[in-house]
């Protein structure tokens, strides 16, 4: 009994024996508060000064509602497009050896490394009517740049790495035995994919979708060049916030920002629970 008591005391000492807990936690909380929490609280403070009626009036103006519909709608479509093409890229990179595979793998992160303004002017130059791709689409009556479709293109670009990088590790860890068993029992490759592989990667795919969606909702730099920015048609909420700020309409900008923040935080919670679920499945 004395032995166990001594043991537990020494264990307690060991777990608290590393130095610097107090100072490091204190510095973390201070820096976090100064840079992130206090500035973000300004949105809440300013929005609460507005009052509920004024807040609702600002947020529910036709132009604001249209911008929210465009921002969330285009981000949703882009994230949905990113699911199959992200899965295709992740699948091919992690499963098939082919020349240039490492190059493609490294390039996947380009949208994260490339400044958004550069992505914006590059995509606009590609898809404009006289651009490398736009000139072939224009005779077919397809115009992508300066329409809501242009917004979707920009958001597919910025969201792509999120899907690939979430799905890829799951595909690499997946146990091939199940797939091989299915095929030896006479399943076609397509059946094996739909019945065996897809259920395993579905949570990762969903997480990637949510991450791409969250990134797309707030995206600004790559979108404003290609969107055309017509109010009610192709004006995203972040741009409307900037416009209101330039007109010194701080109340309008703050109200819209609060709506976007709440949307983003809801998404963040969803992503966190998805990732917890993913980790749980991974452990089993």
């Amino acid at each position, binding site marked *: 009994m004395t032995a166990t008591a001594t043991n537990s005391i020494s264990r307690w000492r060991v777990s608290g024996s590393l130095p610097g807990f107090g100072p490091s936690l204190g510095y973390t909380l201070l820096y*976090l508060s100064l840079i992130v929490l206090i500035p973000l609280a300004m949105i809440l403070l300013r929005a609460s000064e507005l009052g509920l009626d004024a807040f609702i009036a600002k947020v529910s103006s036709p132009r604001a509602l249209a911008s929210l519909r465009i921002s969330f709608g285009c981000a949703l479509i882009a994230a949905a497009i990113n699911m199959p093409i992200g899965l295709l890229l992740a699948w091919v990179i992690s499963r098939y050896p082919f020349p240039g595979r490492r190059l493609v793998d490294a390039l996947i992160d380009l949208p994260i490394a490339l400044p958004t303004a550069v992505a914006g002017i590059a995509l606009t130059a590609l898809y404009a009517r006289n651009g490398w791709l736009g000139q072939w689409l224009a005779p077919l009556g397809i115009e992508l740049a300066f329409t809501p479709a242009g917004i979707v293109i920009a958001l597919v670009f910025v969201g792509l790495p999120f899907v690939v990088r979430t799905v890829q590790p799951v595909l690499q860890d997946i146990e091939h035995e199940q797939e091989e068993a299915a095929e030896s029992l006479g399943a076609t490759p397509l059946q094996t994919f739909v019945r065996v592989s897809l259920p395993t990667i579905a949570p990762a795919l969903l997480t990637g979708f949510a991450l791409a969606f969250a990134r797309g909702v707030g995206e*600004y730099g790559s979108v404003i060049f290609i969107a055309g920015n017509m109010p009610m048609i192709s004006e995203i909420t972040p741009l409307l916030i900037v416009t209101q700020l330039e007109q010194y309409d701080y109340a309008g900008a703050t109200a819209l920002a609060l709506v976007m923040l709440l949307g983003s935080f809801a998404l963040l919670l969803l992503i966190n629970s998805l990732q917890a679920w993913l980790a749980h499945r991974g452990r089993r």
Partner: protein
Amino acid sequence: MIGPDRRYRIARSALILGALSVAGLFLVLPLLIVLSGAIAKGWSLYLASISEPDALAALRLTLTVTAIAVPLNLVFGVVAAWCIAKFEFPGRSALITLIDLPLAVSPVISGLIYVLLFGAQGLLGPWLGEAGFRVIFAVPGIVLATIFVTFPFVARELIPVMQAQGRDHEEAALSLGASGWQTFWRVTLPNIKWGLLYGVILCNARAMGEFGAVSVVSGHIRGKTNTLPLHVEILYNEYQHTAAFAVASLLVLLALLTLVAKTWVEARAHRDRHPDPIVQPDEELP
């Protein structure tokens, strides 16, 4: 009748071809069009565009802002990862979520919050104005917005690495008489160096390339509060497309260097985890 093996090979080739097309369309073409646009009117115009005074001022400001923001977030990342990964305390997972918060915020809102705090109509703005100190439409605002958007990068790379390492090495060093700082420099830092470098590379790329947040607080004063990405926008909106692509090509170079450095660090970290690949298959034998 095509045999199943042949059909499998055809399907595989089709998938690879599809993936290469997607990568070419979405990842390679944007790079090529920037580079070709930059040199469309000859090398002399290219060199003139990237060496004119406003472009150089923008480059200098971008480097200055990055040189402030990255070290600050690096120190924060190490300190935060130390207390989160090496100690157990209530509210730890909430703290991790709060550190990730800037990733969920639109860049425009990341700028807006500092306007609300330090702008002319902001909470502290009038008071700072009397003291003769400008934050918004000046360099301090650009630095703050850049710190905000790159805030989590180092911390979120280090936390899982430090957690995986545990506390055993540090405790051994301390019990052998090393001081806290010695333990950190000689034991902890060598263990986390690749994760640290990885976070710094991502942090640096975002700091140099940030557009939305910086655009809101900058005021776009040429030669004074213009960073490289903002300079690209100004040139583009003035229909100086060749000059815009020329300056943008510098940022493309930054992105490519980032990808190369990232890939290199990943390979080195992988090699450190699996020092001798020849030994591995034997280890898996029962």
